[in-house]
């Protein structure tokens, strides 16, 4: 699909970026090109920390309008004006479908390479996607500022407890899962995993056993299919020790 570039508005000669749509990543882009992966033509676009309810001029949202969410703790920061006047930190991108904002993956061409905007599935007590638990181990507690994964027992069977975030996801759009921990204590016989599986209870496509770093990452760039993001503990029979992990942020990009 051909890319559609929104015209830079009057007074926009000082803008240092452009927003384009399409399903094919642009070739030979200019620095600070923001590409929204969408088959729907882009209308107006706006940067905002909170979900917009109208266009920038106060008129009603129109199908195709794009909202690029800004934040504080993100993986993308760039100068929006030519003379380094405003720095924007980009989080997620969304497109109006006529009745709601739907997530769209996006990338920005920064410093000569494409960088994906992250999609935050969970942060400090707030889920932005549906979630569900599976397993017989128990030990997952949804707290006010983190998700706790804890096991101190002595199981007599091979148990697990996973929380699935977002249901089935098309991983061909993403390269990385990033999990930020509030705190971590673990037993090697009771690993806490970040995993991509063919079901809500599996980790058969890719897995990361969380260690003692505050930021945990899983490479998903090779997974060109749909799958489930599952986070949880897998405990071998008669394992000893304590695993107690607090997750405060889960994002994909």
């Amino acid at each position, binding site marked *: 699909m051909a890319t559609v570039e929104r015209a830079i508005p009057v007074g926009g000669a000082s803008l240092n970026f452009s927003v384009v749509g399409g399903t094919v990543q642009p070739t030979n882009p200019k620095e600070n090109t923001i590409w929204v992966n969408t088959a729907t033509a882009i209308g107006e676009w706006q940067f905002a920390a909170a979900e917009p309810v109208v266009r920038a001029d106060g008129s009603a949202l129109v199908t195709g309008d794009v909202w690029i969410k800004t934040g504080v703790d993100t993986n993308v920061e760039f100068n929006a004006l030519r003379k380094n006047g405003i720095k924007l930190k980009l989080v997620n991108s969304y497109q109006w479908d006529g009745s709601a904002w739907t997530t769209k993956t996006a990338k920005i061409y920064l410093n000569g390479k494409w*960088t994906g905007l992250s999609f935050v599935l969970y942060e400090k007590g707030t889920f932005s996607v549906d979630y569900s638990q599976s397993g017989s181990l128990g030990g997952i507690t949804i707290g006010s500022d983190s998700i706790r994964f804890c096991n101190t027992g002595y199981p007599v069977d091979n148990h697990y407890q996973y929380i699935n975030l977002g249901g089935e996801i098309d991983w061909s759009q993403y390269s990385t899962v990033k999990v930020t921990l509030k705190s971590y204590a673990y037993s090697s016989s009771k690993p806490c995993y970040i995993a991509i599986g063919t079901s809500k209870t599996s980790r058969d496509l890719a897995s990361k*056993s969380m260690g003692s770093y505050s930021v945990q990452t899983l490479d998903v760039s*090779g*997974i*060109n299919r749909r799958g489930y993001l599952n986070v949880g503990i897998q405990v071998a029979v008669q394992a000893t020790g304590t695993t107690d992990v607090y997750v405060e942020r889960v994002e994909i990009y």
Partner: protein
Amino acid sequence: MRTIYLNAEFKCSPTQRADTVKSVETAVFDGKCAEYIEGYRFVPDGETWVREDGVEFAGEMIAPWKPYAELDAAQRAYEQQLLTEYAAALEVMGVKV
């Protein structure tokens, strides 16, 4: 459980090769064909792999580096071949399948 051989980029092989730098024992690839195994990366606990875009991935991490669709197709073909061989063996023993 089987021995998997890793090169400097933590890419897996079911057999030792000229670029092998270490080996690991794991059950993750039990039942998988060589082509499937060779499409995976295994970063052991305590080690770190840096992707070409600069993102760091600490072990233990097991993830495909080849497009998974190709690995899945190879594994399915391998399993179908096994089924064909099993059926042939059963027929030799006079068991109708």
